[in-house]
């Protein structure tokens, strides 16, 4: 282990030595401060501010073209932002080239050097930083053991499977002991089973080394399962930055509510607002209370009330704050049943219910009454906001 620790002379101040021996988090904090990036006239990133703690795993989540890759490239130093600052640790790094930022990056297509073997790929960064020959060899061995590719050391990238290539890319990025790991859609090219394996593997590595990790993804499940915090982006703007529970249970905007998980969007008009709770008269003919994170909602405004299918209950007896409807379709999906319910105003509402083995499904045409579990599970947003 001593050999490993001395494998890399630190020419640049930023990277902290990270070894298997050191269990303590060695990542650094990262701050993106008011980052705006324009390509010609179009704005790819619009005034994004993110404060990422040392050792945190943050997912940048958003639909295609929302500026995730651009943000990552700005952080790595491949692109210079139009406005704003990037702070790594306690240094503003805007004038530093990628090599000086202590950043390890895994590209979406892995970008392995096709003319080099696995071992040569992993050694590239160490050699570029002028490490001694036997130190390089020891470090390469250690990294290949870490990603379980010892046997593949002399193969060329195209002789490897997608998952193996990704592990090489990871080993190559980690070999230089970065204090920040950037992953651009790291699992997009992998099939489902392999994806789960790699997600677990990366999460474990990240925990073990305590590397601050920023992962781009447009897969919400991936973000929810892996990230400590999720930054949801839409059209270059930051919609919400919070823990998976925050983002899923307390979405800040209509966009986040619709993009992360699924949500029923019910149209209505605000009847009363007080203390962050709005009462909305739905077009479906019911009055429902909902939390409103948007202060802009006033009495009389048209509003959209979001409620997730799993937060709705089907009832048979009448009670206040219920939506009447008829079952249109029942989809048994293993652990749950999804019901599509037609409301009196012609809208459709999805409800999920746990499925009990042997229990009969509600037949299409059955009249039902729906109610949310609690007002806290309903969110009211202004109509104009977001998508």
């Amino acid at each position, binding site marked *: 282990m001593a050999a490993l620790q001395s494998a890399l002379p630190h*020419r640049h101040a930023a990277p902290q030595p990270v070894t298997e021996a050191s269990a303590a988090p060695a990542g650094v904090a990262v701050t993106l401060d008011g980052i705006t990036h324009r390509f010609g006239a179009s704005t790819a990133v619009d005034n994004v501010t993110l404060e990422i703690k040392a050792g945190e795993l943050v997912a940048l989540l958003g639909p295609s073209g929302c500026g995730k890759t651009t943000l990552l490239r700005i952080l*790595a130093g491949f692109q210079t932002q139009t406005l704003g600052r990037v702070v790594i640790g306690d240094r503003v790094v805007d004038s530093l080239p990628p*090599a000086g930022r202590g950043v*390890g*990056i895994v590209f979406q297509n892995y*970008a392995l050097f*096709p*003319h080099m073997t696995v071992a040569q790929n992993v050694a590239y960064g160490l050699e*570029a930083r002028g490490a001694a020959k036997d130190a390089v060899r020891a470090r390469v061995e250690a990294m290949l053991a870490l990603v379980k590719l010892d046997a593949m050391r002399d193969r060329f990238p*195209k002789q490897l499977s997608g998952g193996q290539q990704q592990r090489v890319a990871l080993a190559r990025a980690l070999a230089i002991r970065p204090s920040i790991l950037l992953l651009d859609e790291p699992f997009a090219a992998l099939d489902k089973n392999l994806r789960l394996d790699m997600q677990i593997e990366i999460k474990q590595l990240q925990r073990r080394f305590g590397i601050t990790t920023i992962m781009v993804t447009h897969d919400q499940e991936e973000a929810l399962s892996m990230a400590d915090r999720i930054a949801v982006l839409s059209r270059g703007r930051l919609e919400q930055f919070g823990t998976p529970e925050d983002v899923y249970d307390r979405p800040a905007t209509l966009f986040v509510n619709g993009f992360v998980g699924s949500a029923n969007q019910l149209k209505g008009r605000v009847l009363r607002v007080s203390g962050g709770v709005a009462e909305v008269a739905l077009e479906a003919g019911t009055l429902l209370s909902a939390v409103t994170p948007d202060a802009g909602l006033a009495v009389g405004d048209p509003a959209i009330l979001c409620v997730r299918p799993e937060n709705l209950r089907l009832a048979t007896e009448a009670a206040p704050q219920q939506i009447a409807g008829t079952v249109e379709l029942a989809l048994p999906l293993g652990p749950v049943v999804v019901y599509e319910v037609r409301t009196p105003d012609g809208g459709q509402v999805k409800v999920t219910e746990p499925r009990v083995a042997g229990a009969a499904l509600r037949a299409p045409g059955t009249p039902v009454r729906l109610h949310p579990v609690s007002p806290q599970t309903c969110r009211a947003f202004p109509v104009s906001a977001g998508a």
Partner: protein
Amino acid sequence: MTAAAITAGLAGPATAARTRIGREWTLALPLAAFFAVFFVTPLLLLVAVSLFADAEMTRFGLDQYVRFFGDAFNLAVLGSTLYLGVKVTALTLLFGYPLAWLYTRSGPRMQSALILVIILPLLTSVVVRTFAWIVILGRDGIVNTLLLSLGLAETPLRLLYTEGGLVAALVQVQMPLMVLPLITTLSRLDPNLLDASAALGAGPWRGFWKVTLPLSLPGIVAGCLLTYAASVTAFITQSLVGGGQMLFMPQYIYQQTITLHNWPFAAAISIVFMVSVLGVVMLFNLLGRASKGYVHA
């Protein structure tokens, strides 16, 4: 879909492809015929003529080849021609690579300007381009006028009819043949590779030597191949810029045919020249195949 339909669906395109390939070769017939009549036949004729033992073409024998290889002068001409090609190819690569690299790094407007500059020589006749070089290099040419007026030279330098002048002219004339294949390979390179290199701590030079250059080898080989073959056989440029001062294989063949009417000897040295150039080209090709493997990954 029934099993039969699936089988048909699977078999369908494959069968169609096979029949298509089966008939497609007939499309190549006209060209093949053209080649047979205007390329293979003359080539065979050339071989036949080279096998006459005397200039009057009365006896058969290998005398012409014996004569060629028996005379140091002939070997010197062949050697200097092949060497001329090496010099021109090396210089074209030296100037062409940065040009191609600049092209792939430029914005769209700069690219159109550059491609025009690169292609322009191909759009003008070799004769015109060569005469331009005579104007540039001549006794009262642009270079000499400039040198004299700047006081850098007392008397006009002899630039025309020197090997240096010839090499310079050939480099310019053959430049597109080098630059175009280079542009093709360089623009196919994944830009993320250089980003990866930079993030790993390699400077731009290291990235170039370790990543860009090895991965552009196929383009280098293709460019060198074309440039070499074109510059050793560049009869017009060699004759006009080289003047009568230097003798290279193409003029040598021309002399033997047109001036001396020694058709068998001309045919023999043509065959020797062709085989030598083919040898060099094949060597390049071998290099190319060795380097191609990892690029089209």
